[in-house]
């Protein structure tokens, strides 16, 4: 199989955005990867390896081989990400590629890994397509997805804001935005909300005032921002500037919802994030053992708590290493088999399943709210509810995930 490690070491490829708007996420992912490698090689305090339900890993590398890594810059562009991943595979002999912080990149790199015959452990990617219509036998996603966000968020929204609401969606005009809009719409409409309007906004937009201004007058009383990154920061800031949060509509307080939160981004929005509901894959303030261990070792090393991006990347690395260890081989097909249908715990999200049918992880989802009185610059979100896994599960052939096929695993040459 491709890049079978022959010497005393094995090389992993960490492909993260180092430039471009997601560079901070990328930097945090890289920190997590470095930490994971340290732990795998027996350094540090072992982090979540201590709390991981599987005990296959011993801190002596993977299958006794020392873990080394190469890094690359995806620039959050599918092209560049593929080039970078390709060079890791061709030049550096990487046996597994992981990282990315956009669904477009994840899908593109996943496709490449499938063709090249290496395993891809997706980083930050939230679109339904990654494990939906674009799923691949060699690709695995630990992060949650838009459908799960909708399923987790909708009941909380109904509880907080009532079931008789009129929603106005602003959606970033690209694949991820669309799947999220679709998911949130479906979930909220199922609870009785009405969708007044759903407007696509250009990805490159920086000033959203002309999209925000018409909202007030539309009869809507909730604004859903299907935005991420700079888009989210700007649209939320604009919405608050227009005073949406102080307004009344249909006799109710006007509300804003940001379905996908990230703490790093929340920082950019500053004060504006306070009290706003959203969902997230993981948060450092969780109190389970896995989380505590991870936050401790990450915090000690870097001086601040990890982001959800860091968490998912760290976990993906451990999961891969563990799968190899259990399979006893680096062969991608063996690893895939070891991951498929694998149940584990102790990695921060409670009991988790890597579903065989689509290589998506199923676990509890967090609903969070922007904290009113943060105690520190990291303490921006508070967990409102931990939505149990059962509530966010869906059938592998759910229409939002239909089309495409996993195909068969490719071990390469």
């Amino acid at each position: 199989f491709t890049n079978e490690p022959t010497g005393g070491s094995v090389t992993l490829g960490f492909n993260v955005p180092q430039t471009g708007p997601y560079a901070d996420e990328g930097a945090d992912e890289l920190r997590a990867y470095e930490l994971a490698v340290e732990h795998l090689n027996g350094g540090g305090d072992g982090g979540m390896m201590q709390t991981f339900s599987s005990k296959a890993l011993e801190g002596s590398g993977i299958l006794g081989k020392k873990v080394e890594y190469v890094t690359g810059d995806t620039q959050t562009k599918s092209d560049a990400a593929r080039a970078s991943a390709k060079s890791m595979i061709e030049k550096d002999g990487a046996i597994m590629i992981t990282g990315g912080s956009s669904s477009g990149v994840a899908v593109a790199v996943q496709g490449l890994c499938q063709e090249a015959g290496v395993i891809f452990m997706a980083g930050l990617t939230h679109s339904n397509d990654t494990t939906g219509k674009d799923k691949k036998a060699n690709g695995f996603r630990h992060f949650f997805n838009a459908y799960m966000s909708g399923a987790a968020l909708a009941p909380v929204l109904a509880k907080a804001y009532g079931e008789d609401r009129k929603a106005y969606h602003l959606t970033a005009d690209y694949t991820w935005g669309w799947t999220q809009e679709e998911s949130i719409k479906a979930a909220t409409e199922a609870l009785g909300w009405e969708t007044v309007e759903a407007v696509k906004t250009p990805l490159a937009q920086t000033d959203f005032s002309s999209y925000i201004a018409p909202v007030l007058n539309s009869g809507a009383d909730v604004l859903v921002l299907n935005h991420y990154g700079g888009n989210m920061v700007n649209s939320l800031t604009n919405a608050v500037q227009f005073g949406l949060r102080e307004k009344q509509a249909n006799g109710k307080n006007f509300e804003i919802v940001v379905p996908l939160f990230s703490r790093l981004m929340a920082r950019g929005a500053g004060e504006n994030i306070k009290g706003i509901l959203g969902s997230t894959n993981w948060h450092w303030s969780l109190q389970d053992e896995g989380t505590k261990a991870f936050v401790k070792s990450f915090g000690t090393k870097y001086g601040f708590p990890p982001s959800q991006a860091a968490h998912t990347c760290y976990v993906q690395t451990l999961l891969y290493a563990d799968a190899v260890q259990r399979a006893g081989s680096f062969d991608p097909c063996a690893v895939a088999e070891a991951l498929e249908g694998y149940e584990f715990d102790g990695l921060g999200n409670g009991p988790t399943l890597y579903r065989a049918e689509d290589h998506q992880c199923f676990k509890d989802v967090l609903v969070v709210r922007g904290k009113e009185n943060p105690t520190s610059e990291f303490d921006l979100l508070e967990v409102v509810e931990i939505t149990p896994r059962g509530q966010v599960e869906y059938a592998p052939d759910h229409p939002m995930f239909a089309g495409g096929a996993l195909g068969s695993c490719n071990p390469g040459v």
Partner: protein
Amino acid sequence: MFGLGKRDLTLFLIVAVMALFAPFILNPFPTDSGMAQFNAGYPDLMQRFVIFGILAIGFNILFGLTGYLSFGHAAFLGVGSYAAVWMFKLLSMNVIPAILLSMIVSGLFAVVIGYVSLRRSGIYFSILTLAFAQMSYNLAYSVLTPITNGETGLQITLDDPRILGVSATADGGIPVTNLFGLEMRSFETLNIGPWAFQFSVGYYVAAVIMLISFYIAIRIFRSPFGMMLRAIKSNQNRLYYTGLNARPYTLAAFVISGMYAGLAGGLLACMDPLAGAERMQWTASGEVVLMTILGGAGTLIGPVLGAGFIKYFENIFSKINDQVVHGWVSFLPDGLEDLVVALIHPFVGKGWHLTLGLMFMLIVIFLPGGLVEGGQRISRRLRRKPAEDDAKSASTEPAE
């Protein structure tokens, strides 16, 4: 020979030999040495060198000769890629029809954009081309997703029809781009001592096409057509009153260079069958411009050098992380080691843009003619040594 003058022939042969032996030349460091990080001789990067070389050569035909600065050239690259991937999806994985279609489609696209944009000159022309390209990019990213697959980029999948090929291989995989069965991604590795040299089919296919493109470019530079283009740059007014219409000449140059870009886009898709919208973004167009100027606009070999330079930085410097830097300086005492790493840190890895920006500035400040000028200066210095007296007497002669 080949209808080239002696100097051109020499240049062409040098380029040909370099292209042929690139796997050796670009891999000077043994695989297990610390410097192996700087090796560029792996298939993907070598392919990129020659493919972006083609793009820059084509761009230079327009910009170097006519002085029309297109700021939307990446659009043709993107269109070429999309055309090629669609060919893979619909027809077959053979690269020949894909390349042909990508050239045809980008050529047609260039006719339309060129016809409109060339009604203006100077900065107005640049902005028109930029506007077209940005429109293409924005649309490809969103509204045209059914054709372009938006953010992810157009990929081949298992359920593509592929009329003349198969949708999926026997073992359920996606078939591979090939030239009559010769797979683009296959390569041979030659191990000599600690060195490992990779010979990739895709690279050699691209390199041969690059050499053909380069040859055609030389012919164009030396042709009456090339001379007309330079005349357009020099004085359009005179040209009009000499009985020549500049418009068809510039349009021809625009279309030719658009087709070069389309060819490059098609080849990119042949090496890696994905066409991303970012290929069309203004930054990508800007990159072509930078490659050409950096290498030396209006020179034959400059653009190829510029393309190599930028791609090298993008691929090699971005991958140097602290771990690697530590590896280099590990012989130093600990404190010093950390200091050196801290000093190097901002310039490599995620700081590769910083280094690139600095290099742009340094080169353009100190080598106004680009890398070619640098090369000339070195060779002049080398040559001057023995012929110093000649040079002196020559420079004191009157100009006439």
